[in-house]
């Protein structure tokens, strides 16, 4: 199974558009699994009439403190890298939203006062949405601070059996994006030819390089001549895979929840060819 991440620095450049188009085009010949890793605001499912309904709750570890056993020695507080514990003379305060579920506190507690607690952080959805195309997405609970546990779970649930897995990454270049792109065979960076677009693309390209994932660029809303992106791509020796022209007709369809992959049939071939070449 080949894993391809669709990422960008800037938001709203067309990651989902490219991910859905690529998945549909590939599904004509191959078995495809589309993973919407933008767990804070998943939107791939909007473009399919058969949206997934299956649900699975995702939980993370949090320390359950036995106040009878705890003698407030403070070892847990000292070891906590994330500063979520505060120890007083007679009790302990815990800030769940800061906890990264590392279990360090449980490991060092000499009293054995900390046990395995579990807290729901979001839900997973998945089902077959079209012939040869299966969609997985997760939705983070309101108020949660960390998206990565859900992305980890989505990727962990990915079983073999598909020829291609397409990961629709969250925007930005921080932990959720890195978590999505890490371990992929190839990354497609979707960029728009604007000063904002190039600024964020540069950051995203840096992250992808650091993760050791080869990448190419798809320019969305191309005006034909995209000097601002072309110059950067040439300088960094990153290939421009495809230019999606600015099209009012395409946008009109999109605004109604329809992505017309047949407008740009060459997209999938270009991406796959480049991925296999590397």
């Amino acid at each position, binding site marked *: 199974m080949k894993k391809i991440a669709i990422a960008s620095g800037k938001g709203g450049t067309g990651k989902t558009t490219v991910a859905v188009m690529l998945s549909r085009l590939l599904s004509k010949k191959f078995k495809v699994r589309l993973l919407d890793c933008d767990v804070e605001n998943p939107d791939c499912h909007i473009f399919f009439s058969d949206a997934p309904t299956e649900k699975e709750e995702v939980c993370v570890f949090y320390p359950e403190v036995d106040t009878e056993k705890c003698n407030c020695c403070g070892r847990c*507080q000292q070891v906590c890298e*994330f*500063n*979520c514990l*505060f120890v007083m003379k007679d009790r302990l305060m815990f*800030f769940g939203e*800061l906890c990264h579920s590392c279990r360090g506190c449980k490991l060092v507690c000499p009293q054995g006062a900390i046990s395995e607690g579990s807290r729901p952080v979001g839900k997973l959805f998945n089902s077959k949405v079209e012939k040869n195309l299966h969609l997985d997405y997760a939705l983070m609970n309101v108020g949660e601070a960390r998206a990565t546990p859900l992305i980890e779970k989505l990727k962990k649930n990915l079983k073999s059996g598909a020829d291609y897995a397409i990961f629709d990454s969250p925007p930005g270049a921080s932990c959720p994006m890195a978590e999505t792109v890490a371990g992929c065979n190839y990354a497609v960076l979707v960029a728009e030819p604007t000063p904002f677009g190039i600024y964020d693309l540069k950051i995203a390209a840096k992250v992808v390089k650091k993760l050791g994932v080869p990448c190419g660029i798809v320019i969305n809303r191309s005006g034909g001549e995209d000097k601002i992106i072309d110059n950067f791509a040439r300088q960094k020796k990153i290939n421009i895979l495809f230019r999606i022209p600015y099209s009012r007709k395409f946008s009109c369809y999109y605004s109604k929840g329809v992505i017309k992959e047949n407008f740009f049939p060459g997209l999938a071939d270009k991406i796959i060819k480049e991925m296999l070449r590397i």
Partner: protein
Amino acid sequence: MKLCLTSTGKDLEASVDHRFGRSRYFIFAATEGKKYRVIENSAASASQGAGIRAAQIVMDQKPEAVITGNLGPNASSVLLNAGIKVYQHGGGSVQEAIESFNKGVLKEITQATVGGHFGAGGGRGRGGRGDFSNR
């Protein structure tokens, strides 16, 4: 009486740091006399939870009151739960803050005065805008 003051410098002439969790130093001073002790705030550069860790550093020294500029939600939650009185000092030196405390003119803080990440500063448009600070 032993006070803890957030400070931008290592002596009583330094200004009171208007942040609590990310204060540069903590000065522990007696209300009478000139004796004081300085502790560098190792929580100042924490990636998260600076207020909580700073409160732990402060409380481990067992002061009887804390004087600072502002208090975020987590720091106020732990300090108030720990039962220590916290006072607000608008600006000026640590020495002046101690004098104001002795005159009894400092306002007591009974809830967070700013939102989270107020003192985090740096990029991402944070810092100094308490009202908008929850990412």
